[in-house]
């Protein structure tokens, strides 16, 4: 079913796959890092929670990237989440 739909949509599919694979990782890493930085528990605990949950974030972003039909929306949300979460984590800096 899918292969017929994909004719002539190669670039769009490539963009979507890259967004899922790399953007999804960046967004998951950003969210996990922000969570680890902000969770009001001991730093070793906060770090571990961020790491444990990161793959769930990644899987959710990756799958949603192939569910949402509008590629612009996919790219905006995933790359946006990566930039916002990653930027916030950078601005906050290392936990004092």
């Amino acid at each position, binding site marked *: 079913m899918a292969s017929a739909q994909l004719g002539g949509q190669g670039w769009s599919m490539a963009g979507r796959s890259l967004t899922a694979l790399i953007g999804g990782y960046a967004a998951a890493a950003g969210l996990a*890092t922000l969570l*680890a930085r902000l969770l009001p528990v001991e730093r070793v605990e906060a770090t571990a929670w961020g790491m444990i949950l990161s793959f769930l974030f990644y899987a959710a972003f990756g799958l949603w990237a192939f569910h949402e039909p509008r590629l612009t929306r996919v790219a905006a949300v995933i790359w946006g989440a990566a930039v916002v979460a990653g930027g916030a984590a950078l601005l906050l800096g290392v936990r004092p």
Partner: protein
Amino acid sequence: MKGNGVRQSMAWIHGWLGLLAGWILFAMFVTGTASYFRPEITRWMQPEYRPHAVPQAEAARTTVAWLQKNAPHDEQWTIYLPTERTLSTRAFTRARPNPDPKAPRAPRRPEVRLDPATGAPIEARDTRGGEFFYRFHFQLQLPHPWGRWLAGLCAMFMLGAILSGVITHKRIFADFFTLRWSKGQRSWLDAHNVSAVLALPYHAMITYTGLITLVVMYMPWPILANYPKPTAFAESLYGDTAGQKASGQPGRLADMGRFVEAASAEWEGARVSRIIVGNPDDASSTVTLLRTGEDRLNARGASITYAGVSGARLAASPAPGPAVETAGVMLGLHLGWFAGPLLRWVCFLLGLTGCAMVATGLVLWTVKRQRPGAQPFFGMSLVERLNIGAVACLPAGIAAFLLANRLLPPMLVGRADLEVSAMFWAWFGLAALSLLRPVRRAWIETLAISALLFAAVPIADLAMVGAFPTDGLFVAFDATMFLLAATLGFAAWRTAVRPARAARPRRRAPVTVAEVREAVDVA
């Protein structure tokens, strides 16, 4: 891809995730399943080694005596004490870095395996043993760090495939009980569903916890948010271990057996799994002992650090909080060290259902796309051939690895590497040869060859070791080889008696909305 509902899109992505990572995932499932028996495989592969069980404290003493004779000025020793399953001591040593910055780095020394009773290196045929399967499972025989990254990527695909597969599934409970033989595509789908759904909690657990085993490599960013020095995270997990600088003054280690007994007493009799000695010839040497993870779910055991010369207790790892405990339990669930013999066999069988899930999923991808009388398109041929190469030929490689262990002369130089070469030559060689045969014949013949090679393993064991095995481990191992041979033979026979593809009635490509929906549900 973009059907109306979430089930359609998830069915689509499930197929692609499973296909793209499937061949590597199959190899990871097979070698990972074998790794449940890592020490046992090593023991089978060194049949002449007859160990003498001694108390842990005694093993620690003999090992340190050997290390003091052979690597006295090293920066660090790591000693894995024998367990009821390994029966031998393993030791790694790390040389001091050359003070001259231009000097080349000292090469990492290989692992030494010692007889715990005598402290002498084990005199038995050289082999990678079960360690080979264990390493291949997450390093894929590729240079560091690419193998680990690729394994992680495939695990991530697997996680996506499991989640999307569950969402796709409408009748998850009913499919638990449904297996219709000899119905073409329907049978393959049922087989895929039964193997996947039956052990679904296991598959989800083993995939997620697998990612957690290497999380520090895959997802190090949360550490950077909380620690100015990334190594401080590990220190806060394990307590401050062996971080001491050498003083430059010579010092002599106190009796290692006393350290083992003291730590074990503090852990209410639990065993020591590992000893790390920092700067063993220095006055400021440290001895860190790690608690075994074999008697509890959390594989990341507690640790205690002592001063090496005076024996004073310096530090102990803090009690883990909920997140660290969770991560430790995830690690433990993946490694399965906690499992006693019966549970270990259950884990092994669950691992085999994982192999079956991946294999049937790969076959299903091609069966779904076959059209009667049509020439297979290029992608179809590629997938069919890769399926044969992965699913039917990898077992031949594993059997060749075990056969080489029995057939190569025990004292041959470089035999450990030759065993590994035998595996890859058999695997890729058979896959290359199978290209010469039509697809159906190739399936039947490669499966039959794999079955014969597995059946040959116990025969070679009897012939080369000379005596009928009386040790339960050898009996169980050889029996398992026969069972694997029978399973592969059965698969070859089923493929052979199956009606030829062209003769089978097939539905057209779905055209109506109802048919599309049905096709999607079937996916």
